[in-house]
């Protein structure tokens, strides 16, 4: 339920600054980054993603640590299914 998935910002959408492409273990999807608007993100930044929204900015080391935690809790597969399952895109 409260999965927090680490992802790296690849690029911000040109026309919708609240959307960004993130990469999680090689999979790219769009997520909503509106909750981090007070501290604008750029490509290469790492975030924790929860139900399609970037919730917090983290360090690269923090991202590695989080991925490792998910694997140890047996939640890494579920996390990838979630990322791959996001269907919203530029129009929503």
């Amino acid at each position, binding site marked *: *339920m*409260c999965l*927090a998935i680490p992802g790296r910002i690849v690029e911000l959408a040109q026309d919708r600054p609240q959307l960004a492409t993130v990469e999680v273990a090689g999979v790219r999807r769009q997520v*909503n980054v*509106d*909750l*981090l*608007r*007070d501290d604008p993100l750029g490509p290469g930044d790492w975030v*924790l993603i*929860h*139900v*399609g*929204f970037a*919730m*917090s900015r*983290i*360090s690269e080391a*923090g991202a590695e*640590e989080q991925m*490792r*935690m998910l694997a*140890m*809790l*047996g*939640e890494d597969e*579920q996390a990838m*299914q*979630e990322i791959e*399952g*996001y*269907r*919203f*895109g530029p*129009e*929503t």
Partner: protein
Amino acid sequence: MKYVDEFRDPKLIRQAAEEIRRLARPGRHYRIMEVCGGHTHAIYRFGLEGLLPDNLELIHGPGCPVCVLPMGRTDDGLALAELPEVIFTAFGDVMRVPGTKGSPLEHKARGAAIRMVYSPLDALKLAEAHPDRHVVFFAIGFETTAPSTALTLLRARELGIRNFSVFCNHVTIIPAIRAILDSPGMRLDAFVGPGHVSTVIGCRPYEFIAQDYGKPIVVSGFEPLDILQSLVMILRQLAAGRAEVENQYARVVPWEGNLPALRALEEVFELRPYFEWRGLGFISQSALKLRDAFAEWDSERRYTVPGIRVTDPKAAQCGEVLKGVLKPPQCKLFGRECTPERPVGALMVSSEGACAAYYHYVHRAAAAASLER
């Protein structure tokens, strides 16, 4: 100390465990509640209880959203799913929660229009794609998840999507902690504060725990070392007679929380006068509903929701386990009628529920060990 070698830094784990043993005064029994289901999962997975002295007991709190949802709300949601125009959407965890006549997954197998989504934005997208249908999103979760529902509703309004509504079951953590502190017979020494909820609400809302109840709370990360360090910080406070809010997880949790998230919550939601929690009963001002400005997108105002109240199966003792009065295996149904494959109570449904976590990591391991003998 078992398990220690699989940790990334066994030396630091060992040091923290030793420090806990040093700080825990013999002759005193410590009861510390971890509020968050993610912590419960990690504690069982890493066998952290095995590293703690016998006089330090961890009580598993109410921080698993599907676990505290009364069955009647699932039934209410499923009543909406029966309406011909409705497509009912929910997160994966909700899909497995038992209602009176089965889980959403079982209703789907019987032909109801039910879809699992990974984000509320996916539910909104589904509404866009099916203008002739009405998409209901079964919203659930604490303050970690509620901002995503709020932003989705703001987006629905911005895009003018009117065939979408939210069946709101969002709850707030502070009133639940207060209810636990006020419940008779409950003796707790301190709290391990939730990690992800606190990224949104920050640390300030916990100040009443220290100031009004004189108990320490330490907001904690999820790594084994984080949890042990938080326990060290708690025991240091108790040893010095201090009661403060401390933030062990400052690398992710800002003291003030996430302001855009708090603003979105404020714009979209207001507090319900009361809401029923499984195991804890009715707690005033403990849940969110949509403000009048969003009435159009509120499933409970667009449709007549039956308002079903269901008492838990008598034999299931979810409430006692939720309050930490019973340990999971002390429930009469544990591991027999109630298993993760066929959950009777919600604590068996989610990996964050105390019963499922205990079943996966303690019960099964013990069963495997007895087979080997």
